[in-house]
C-alpha cells in the first residue's frame, strides 16, 4: 500500500514539474510560431494603417519603450532610496514595519486599481490627460514595491565587514553607502530594476486608462500612446488582423524575455558573489 502511494506521489510530482515546463513551452511556442513570421523589417519599422489592419507597429514599440524608460528610473530612484533608508538608517521599529507593510500591500494592489487611481489623479485631477506622463507615473508607482524589495535584499546582503572597513578608513555614512555598499549591491538592485522594466512593458490594464490608445507617435510628454500590449489586446479582441496581433505578441514576448533573461543572469551573478 505504501509502495503504491509512494509511486503515485512521485509520479504526480514529476508530472507537475514537467507539466509546468510544457505549459510554458506551449504558450510561448504558440505565440512565437505564429508571430515570428509576421516580424518583417517593414513590420517593425512602419506605422499602422487602417487602424492596424495593415502596416507595422513602430509607434507602439517606441511608445512602450518611452513609457518604460520614463517610469523605471523614477521608481528606481525612489525605490532604491527607500531601500537604502530601510537597510542602512534604521533598526526594526514600528515605522519600518509600517513601511514594509505598506510596500507589501502596494505589491498586491491589482493593476486595474492602479489604472483607476492613475486615471483619477493624473488624467483628471492633475489634468495631464491620457498621456505618456500619466502612464509613466502610474507605472512608476506600480513597480515601486518590486524595486524596494529587491534593492533592500541586495543592500542587506552586503557583508557588514565592507562597511566596517570603510568606516575604519574614516569614511562617513553616506560616503560608505555610495562607494562601498551600493556598488556591491549593484547587480541585485539592477535585477529589481530589470524586473520592473519587464513589468512595465507587459502591463495593460493600468496603461489603457492612463496612457490612452492613440495610434500616433507621441510627440510630447502629454501625448497619448499605445503600447504593444494594448495594441495586441485591441487587434486580437476585435479580429482586426490576427497576423499582426501575433506579430505584436511575439515582439512583446521576445522583448520581455530579453529583459528578464538579463535580470536572471544578473541575479545569478549576484547570488554567486554572495
Amino acid at each position, binding site marked *: 500500500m505504501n509502495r503504491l*502511494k*509512494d509511486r503515485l*506521489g*512521485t509520479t*504526480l*510530482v*514529476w508530472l*507537475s*514539474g514537467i*507539466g*509546468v*515546463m510544457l*505549459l*510554458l513551452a506551449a*504558450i510561448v511556442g*504558440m*505565440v512565437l510560431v505564429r508571430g515570428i513570421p509576421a516580424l518583417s523589417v517593414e513590420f517593425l519599422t512602419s506605422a499602422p494603417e487602417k487602424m492596424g489592419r495593415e502596416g507595422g507597429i513602430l509607434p507602439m514599440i517606441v511608445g512602450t519603450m518611452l513609457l518604460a524608460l520614463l517610469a523605471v528610473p523614477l521608481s528606481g530612484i*525612489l525605490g*532604491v*532610496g*527607500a531601500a537604502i*533608508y*530601510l537597510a542602512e*538608517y534604521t533598526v526594526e521599529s514600528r515605522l519600518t514595519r*509600517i*513601511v514594509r507593510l*505598506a510596500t*507589501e*500591500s*502596494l505589491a*498586491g*494592489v*491589482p*493593476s*486595474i486599481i492602479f489604472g*483607476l*487611481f492613475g*486615471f*483619477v*489623479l493624473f488624467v483628471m485631477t492633475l489634468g495631464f490627460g491620457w498621456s505618456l506622463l500619466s502612464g509613466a507615473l502610474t507605472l512608476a*508607482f506600480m513597480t*515601486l514595491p518590486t524595486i524596494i*524589495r529587491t534593492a533592500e535584499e541586495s543592500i542587506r546582503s552586503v557583508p557588514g565587514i565592507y562597511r566596517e572597513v570603510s568606516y575604519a578608513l574614516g569614511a*562617513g555614512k*553616506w560616503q560608505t553607502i555610495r562607494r562601498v555598499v551600493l556598488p556591491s549591491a549593484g547587480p541585485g538592485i539592477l535585477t529589481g530594476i530589470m524586473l520592473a522594466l519587464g513589468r512595465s512593458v*507587459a502591463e*495593460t*490594464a493600468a496603461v489603457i*486608462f492612463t496612457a490612452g490608445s492613440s495610434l500616433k507617435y507621441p510627440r510630447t510628454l502629454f501625448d497619448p500612446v499605445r503600447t504593444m500590449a494594448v495594441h*495586441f*489586446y485591441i487587434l*486580437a*479582441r476585435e479580429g482586426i488582423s490576427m497576423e499582426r496581433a501575433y506579430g505584436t*505578441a511575439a515582439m*512583446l*514576448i521576445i522583448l*520581455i*524575455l530579453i*529583459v*528578464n533573461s538579463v535580470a536572471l543572469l544578473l541575479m545569478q551573478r549576484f547570488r554567486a558573489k554572495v
Partner: protein
Amino acid sequence: MHERRIERLLTCAALSSIAILALIILFIFKEGIGAVRHTGVLNFLVGSRWSPSREVFGIFPMIVGSLWVTVGALLLGAPLGILCAVFLSEFAPPKIANLARVSVQMLAAIPSVVYGFIGLVVVVPLIREYLGGPGFSVMASSIVLATMILPTVISISLDAIEALPSSYKEGAIALGATKWQAVAMVILPSARSGILAAVILGMGRALGETMAVIMVAGNALSVPTGALAPVRTLTSGIALEMGYATGLHRQALFGMGIVLLLLILGLNLIASSVGRGVRR
C-alpha cells in the same frame, strides 16, 4: 549637515510607499463612496441587479463571480503549484531543476493579455465543443487564472520548503522514509504556513486579474449557475464599463474598486501574518 540632508531625503523616499498607498485608498474611496451611499452599502453589496442606465447598482453577482473564478483557479493551480515546488526542491535532478526554475520565471513574465488571448482561442472553443455552454465561462477563467498564479504559488512555496532546516528531511530519511513519505509527512506539514501564504497570495493575484478574465469570462451579469456559465468579475466589470462611464455610473465602478481593494488588502494582511516565519 550633508549627512542630515541625505537622511531626510531617504526618509522621504521610504515614506513614499505609505504615501502612495494612502493616496490610492483615498482617491478610490473618494470617487466611489458617492455611488455606494446613493444605493446604500447593503444594497450595493447584496443587490443582484446592475443596471447603470436605470441607476441601479447591485454588485452581488460580480462579487460571487470573482469568488467562484478565484476558488476555481486555486483548486486547479494550488495543488499543481505546490507539487511543482516539491518537484523543484526535492525530486528534480539539478539540470532539470534549473530548466524548470527558469520556466517558472518566464511564465511570470508573459503578459496577461497573451494568457487571455490563448484562453480565448484555445480554452473557450474546447469548452464550447466538448463540455457545452457558450465556452465563455467560470471554467475558462479559472483555467487561465490557474496558469497565471502558478509562478506565485510555486516560488513562494519553494521558498517555504527551502527554508526548512535540512535536518527535517534527513531525519525522516534516516528513519527509513522514502522521498515521497518525507515530503508528505514531514516537509509539507512543516512548511504549511509558508505554503498557505503562497496560496493566499495566489488568491490575491487571481482576484486582481483583469485583462485575461475579460477575454474569457463572458461578462454576463447574472450569478453564474455552474462552472460552464458565463460570469463577470469585479475586475472585468470595472474595466468593461470604465471607458464610457460618467457621473454616478463611474462612481459606482469606483465603488467596486473599493470592494476589490478591501478584499485584496485584507487577503494580503492575512497572508503576511500567516507566512511570517518564511524568509522572502
